[in-house]
């Protein structure tokens, strides 16, 4: 029954997504495809971080009546770790900014050479 723990499942899926994303970043030749793989990688890492903060059988860190029911009037026994969640919140917004920036570069690169293939951009290759 160990496999049926939610934290471990989240961790596993996160790792799988990270590997798939890495594969895409390394193997693809199209710039847009690379950026898509990058967003998948991003999602996987966020999943790993949230899964690390999950505690079995507990509820979201928002204190109201149901928290007191679950934890016997003790908040410490009722909620999951709020710190990774706050971290991931920041990470997602910054990931959006990074994606937007990458896409702006991609647009400029396409305008310069009319191609999206990464092998065509070899000006700095020696």
């Amino acid at each position, binding site marked *: 029954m160990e496999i*049926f*723990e*939610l*934290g471990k*499942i*989240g961790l*596993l*899926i996160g790792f*799988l*997504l990270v590997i*798939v*994303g890495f*594969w*895409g970043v390394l*193997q*693809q030749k*199209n710039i*847009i*495809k690379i*950026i*898509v*793989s990058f*967003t*998948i990688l*991003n*999602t996987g890492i*966020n*999943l790993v971080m*949230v*899964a690390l*903060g*999950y505690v*079995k*059988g*507990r*509820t*979201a*860190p*928002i204190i109201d009546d149901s928290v007191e029911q679950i934890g016997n009037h003790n908040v410490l026994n009722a*909620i*999951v770790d709020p710190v990774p*969640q706050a971290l*991931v*919140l920041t990470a*997602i*917004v910054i*990931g*959006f900014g990074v*994606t*937007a920036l990458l*896409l702006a570069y*991609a*647009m400029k690169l*396409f*305008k310069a050479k*009319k191609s*999206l293939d990464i092998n065509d951009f070899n000006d700095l290759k020696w």
Partner: protein
Amino acid sequence: MNNEIIYSVVAIGIGLLMVIMAVIAILNKKLSVAIIAAGVVSLFASVLFLLMSAPDVAMTEAAIGSGLSTLIFFYVLNKIKRQNA
């Protein structure tokens, strides 16, 4: 306690779906399909965040990670299509 098992089953189902979608996103030749598949991965990630008791993160992922990113991707794709024609 029963809840935990239901959550796990849902998480395994959604997780398999996400991994399949991610592989589709990378292997499919058409860019638009790849982008939609990446959007689906983000949307299901948000359900998974909710299962792991992180509603704030789920909301952010649904709004920013999936919706607005997809929009920007499609703007870029549209412009590339326009310039190619």
